């Protein structure tokens, strides 16, 4: 789960990391009032969770009321890489001489957190990592001890940060690790961490991603999640309500299955047989009939979908429950909205086949046959 910039900044500021003065606004008047109170120049920043907001026109630096009005009118309500901009952060512009990068993430290869510092802040750090890996100092942290103070200093010195601000940068890094650790972060990042002419450091951006599996013990952040999730794809929001692992894609063959690896494989086979997957939908383990019916409702709600392939290999999921759910979902229609191809295997598949109303669906015995049939239907549906 990703926090919005304004949420992450609040979390950072509460922990004592210096951030610029800022206010959230959702209309032009709000932007003008905020800018007046903070004092020009200010930055007007779209609050959506995509990278490269600046390049896409989602961030404007403005000097006066006229520019602020123009920026507010163009940014609020804009479509930024598929996300509707409902809110902007109005923030005091920082007069900087240097831009640094500091971040904490989980190095999955090592199975340990890693702290990173670079003097090449203000640009896409992943590009820096690729083109000039030496420019990023890395320090792995033993999660059972936490970050020792010397490790923060070492990362800062290794990165070549100016001595005049090294102590303050170390202190920001230490706080950032504490937050990452206390709040079950997956990534915590400040890019850029700006250095002013008076040798002050200030977090001009803030990224805080939280491990979704740990939200049960982060009630404050879980509350922020509802707000953070707003503005995304409508169907993905619906999937959240149904508690499905769902990703919307561009194609027209809808896909439902159980287990991430098998669902991914079904997507890949749709592609392999010349079709285009419309989505990834994993009903999870042990799904009962109502959940299966919800999954069909989900995929039918996507206007792009021309056919659906339902691929279940039961381990803890039972074929009879799946069949009941499919019947339940389809029997409510006078006419089935989109052709559904079903393949059942594994636990209780024979019982499932007995229950399944074969007037409503096409049954195939193997994964390969089911996918090919669904791709054919999708092509016909498109024609």
């Amino acid at each position: 789960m990703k926090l919005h910039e304004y949420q992450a900044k609040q979390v950072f500021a509460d922990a004592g990391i210096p951030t610029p003065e800022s206010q959230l606004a959702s209309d032009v008047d709000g932007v003008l009032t905020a800018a007046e109170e903070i004092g020009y120049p200010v930055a007007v920043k779209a609050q959506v969770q995509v990278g490269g907001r600046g390049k896409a026109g989602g961030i404007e630096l403005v000097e006066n009321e006229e520019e602020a009005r123009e920026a507010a009118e163009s940014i609020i309500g804009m479509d930024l890489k598929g996300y509707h901009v409902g809110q902007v952060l109005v923030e005091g512009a920082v007069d900087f001489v240097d831009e640094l990068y500091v971040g904490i993430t989980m190095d999955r290869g090592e199975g340990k957190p890693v702290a990173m510092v670079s003097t090449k802040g203000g640009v896409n750090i992943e590009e820096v990592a690729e083109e000039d890996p030496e420019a990023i100092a890395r320090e792995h942290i033993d999660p059972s001890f936490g970050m020792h103070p010397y490790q923060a200093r070492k990362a800062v010195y290794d990165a070549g940060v100016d001595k005049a601000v090294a102590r303050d940068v170390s202190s920001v890094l230490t706080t950032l690790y504490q937050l990452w650790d206390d709040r079950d972060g997956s990534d915590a990042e400040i890019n850029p961490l700006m250095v002013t002419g008076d040798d002050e450091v200030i977090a001009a951006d803030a990224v805080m991603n939280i491990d979704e599996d740990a939200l049960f013990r982060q009630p404050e952040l879980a509350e922020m999640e509802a707000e953070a999730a707003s503005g995304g794809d409508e169907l993905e929001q619906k999937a959240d309500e149904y508690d499905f692992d769902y990703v919307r894609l561009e194609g027209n063959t809808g896909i439902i299955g159980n287990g991430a690896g098998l669902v991914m494989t079904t997507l890949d086979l749709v592609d392999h047989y010349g079709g285009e997957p419309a989505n990834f939908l994993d009903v999870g383990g042990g799904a009962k009939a109502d959940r299966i019916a919800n999954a069909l409702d989900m995929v039918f709600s996507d206007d792009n979908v021309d056919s659906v392939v339902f691929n279940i290999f039961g381990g803890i999921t039972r074929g009879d429950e799946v069949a009941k759910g499919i019947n339940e979902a389809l029997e409510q229609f006078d006419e089935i909205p989109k052709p559904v191809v079903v393949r059942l295997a594994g636990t209780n598949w024979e019982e499932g086949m007995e229950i399944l109303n074969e007037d409503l669906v096409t049954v195939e015995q193997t994964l390969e046959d089911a996918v090919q049939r669904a791709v054919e239907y999708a092509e016909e549906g498109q024609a």
Partner: protein
Amino acid sequence: MSVLVDDDTRVVVQGITGGEGKFHAEQMMEYGTNVVAGAVPGKGGQEAAGVPVYDTVHEAVEEEDADTSVIFVPPAFAGDAIFESLDSDLELAVAITEGIPTQDMARVNKRLTETDTRLIGPNCPGLITPGEAKLGILPGNIFADGNVGLVSRSGTLTYQVVDNLTNRGIGQTTAIGIGGDPIIGTDFVDALELFENDDETEAIVMCGEIGGEDEEEAAAFIDENVDTPVAGFIAGRTAPPGKRMGHAGAIVSGSGTGTAESKISALNDAGVPVGDTPEEVADHIEEFLA
């Protein structure tokens, strides 16, 4: 022969009084697994699935000579349950639980370097030696005894590939589901090493997926150390970057690491054919065994 589990394995089930724990303890016993005890704090002295329950794993080891634990504990408490098994002198711990916070697993990962206990999982279906024993939730009836070792990050994909093999009369020595999380105990390299050293295993199937670099490391290991023929499958060729495909570990990062192409080409370079479909994987294995 087989690896890690056979009919001598003595199992304690952590969380045996919960719905999942009890059901799967019974299923394991029905398959022939020697389940000797359960461990649930506060439930010591009771009986579940026909075996005695102890308050601690330590007691189950003392009283019933358990050497392996299978963990069905809810995610909030599962990290602690894994620590308990690692601190109880077991040979093997298998964590089925899905959704354990990653930071808990980072701490477990550190502890693994200090103990001799091997961990499989978490977020995995477990492992099975067909005809002898299974540890976890795999449906026993699709497996058959034979000479193919299988290691996979995904549960249901394992079932799919096993089904393709079994339908052709190709059985398995042991099938191991190593789990779909970013931080896991036993990885591909560990499992490949076990199969390479097992006399009965004549061919290996390795099912990977997008995310991380474990498949690339496995490819390098195969190139250097594995003589047994290996066939691969990689799920997630069509996954867009930045989207988590169900498994916490299955995500192509923004910088492009963890892609299916990278994994497939690393495996191909190591002489491992990668099937476009599960059927093609079975084709390769059939050729190896011919």
